[in-house]
């Protein structure tokens, strides 16, 4: 975490910097050989990874089936659009509600578990949701998925923005991302966030301090699942479709890897860093070799072995060392010389 003064802020200097840099992406993304759509993907997956890290990094709950919530949100966005109302806000609300509801069902069945049992149950539920998405053909379209999902216009009262091309869509998801980051930053630094962190450190002690650990775990699973569903909804809109594969075990594993590689266990921004590195590696290394996932996997193994705190954690460590050295040299140079 950064200093306590930024913890109390709603908007931190780091946030402003990140938003500014991200806002310039469409200006130079083509020049470095990438394309605007990857920006859309990065921002949406960043929302997903931040939502996921609420469970993994903040609360210490190992969830390996989070793709289910992302996927449920994606389908809910499409189904709301086809069956209820072709309105962006209604569809996104549908995605959040569907994700949160799936989270509630899973949470009710696993919130009393800990550690490996918790992890195994999340895998089992992830598989169940994936199977449903493949088999329930009449609703989900099975393996063919839901096609022809529209990028609906963003309406604010009388003004309406068309976000159907990649650049405007990018600015839309970036604005959404900014709001999500603000809310999550406040959440993790609130009393509620502190208790989640306490639960990560010791469930037993937290319970003996008078906190209903079960209710906290259930609530954070629901919040995380709702936000993951929201990201899934955005993704369905961006892709103009929803497929079962976002729910499979490998995809659920990906979000874990991205979060850990970036340093989600020690840093708020870790998951975002992980997403950026992963998606860029996918495209850059992927253009050179089909075995890009192998390289990313190898990187993951090395990181877990040597830098379990991830990239953000490593950077933090370097910063601290650098500060300590600067401090030391200042003390040395200001020390009176003995004559």
């Amino acid at each position, binding site marked *: 975490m950064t200093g306590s003064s930024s913890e109390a802020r709603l908007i931190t200097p780091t946030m402003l910097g990140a938003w500014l840099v991200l806002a310039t992406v469409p200006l130079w993304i083509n020049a470095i050989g990438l394309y605007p759509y990857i920006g859309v993907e990065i921002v949406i997956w960043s929302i997903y990874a931040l939502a996921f890290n609420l469970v993994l990094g903040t609360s210490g709950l190992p969830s390996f089936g989070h793709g289910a919530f992302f996927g449920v949100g994606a389908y809910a966005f499409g189904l709301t659009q086809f069956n209820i109302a072709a309105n962006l806000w209604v569809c996104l609300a549908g995605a959040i509600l569907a994700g949160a509801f799936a989270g509630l069902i899973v949470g009710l069945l696993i919130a009393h578990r800990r550690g490996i049992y918790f992890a195994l149950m999340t895998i089992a539920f992830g598989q169940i949701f994936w199977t449903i998405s493949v088999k329930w053909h009449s609703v989900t379209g099975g393996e063919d998925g839901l096609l022809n999902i529209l990028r609906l216009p963003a309406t604010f009262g009388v003004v309406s923005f068309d976000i159907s091309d990649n650049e405007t869509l990018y600015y839309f998801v970036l604005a959404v991302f900014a709001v999500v980051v603000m809310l999550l930053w*406040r959440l993790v630094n609130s*009393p*509620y966030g502190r208790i989640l962190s306490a639960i990560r*450190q010791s469930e037993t*002690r937290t319970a003996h*301090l*008078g906190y209903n650990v079960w209710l906290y775990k259930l609530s954070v699973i629901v919040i995380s699942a709702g936000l993951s569903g929201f990201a899934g909804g955005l993704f369905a809109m961006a892709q103009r479709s929803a497929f079962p594969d976002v729910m499979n075990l490998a995809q659920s594993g990906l979000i874990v890897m991205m979060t850990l590689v970036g340093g989600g266990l020690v840093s708020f921004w870790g998951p975002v860093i992980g997403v950026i590195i992963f998606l860029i590696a996918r495209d850059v290394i992927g253009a050179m070799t089909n075995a890009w996932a192998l390289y990313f996997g190898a990187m993951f193994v090395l990181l877990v072995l040597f830098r379990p705190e991830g990239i953000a954690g490593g950077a933090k460590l370097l910063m601290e060392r650098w500060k300590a050295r600067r401090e030391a040299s200042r003390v040395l140079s200001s020390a009176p010389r003995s004559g």
Partner: protein
Amino acid sequence: MALIEVEGVHVRFGDRVVLEEINLAVNEGELHGIMGPNGAGKTTFFNTLTGSVKPSRGRIRLEGADIAGLGPHAIARKGVARSFQIMTLFNDFTAQENVMVALPAFRARGFDVRRAVAGDSALADEANEVLASVGLGEKAAISAKLLSYGERRALEIAVALAQRPRVLCLDEPTSGLGTDGTTRLAELIAKLKGKLTIVAVEHDMRFLFSLADRISVIHWGQVVARGTPRELQENPWVKRSNLGSFG
């Protein structure tokens, strides 16, 4: 009526019976010592009293109301705080944060997501006061994992006190402390004595016999001897069992 009444409490793990039948009463404001050999089930008794282990038989009453079978958070909310024999402090938190989350004022806001903790000086001040009362006033900003062993023991007690408990359960508070640390802890507990009800498991006989109003000896899953320190020193069973020298 005693504040805590334990009647016929029986605890087993699988087919291993740890507590056969515990009967014990603690009066309001009393400092009640518990002793017994290693593995006698003293910690298990605390776990049962504070809700993390459910007894398979028996009653535990707090002010007449049965609390056996309630979860740890429910019992904590009734004003029963405990320290742990094996320290499980929140290592990623500072000393101040460890104490802060234990405050009833913090607990009342546990589901609050609107305000940041960092800007709240009322919570910080209250936590610092508790830290000062156990001699950790200077250590508020230090991460718990960087504290010395003795400081961690003190923090363990600060966390329990921060809950503003009616009943304080201490599981071997002096363990690992040197003579100085033990003396300071004895002074602190002497100051607390009478203000709240204390149940203390302790191996250090000198410590326990100088502070306790009454002592219960747990052995073979039962309370095999009980009484004031003076009565216990005369107790033939205690004398024979070589539980420790009384200085």
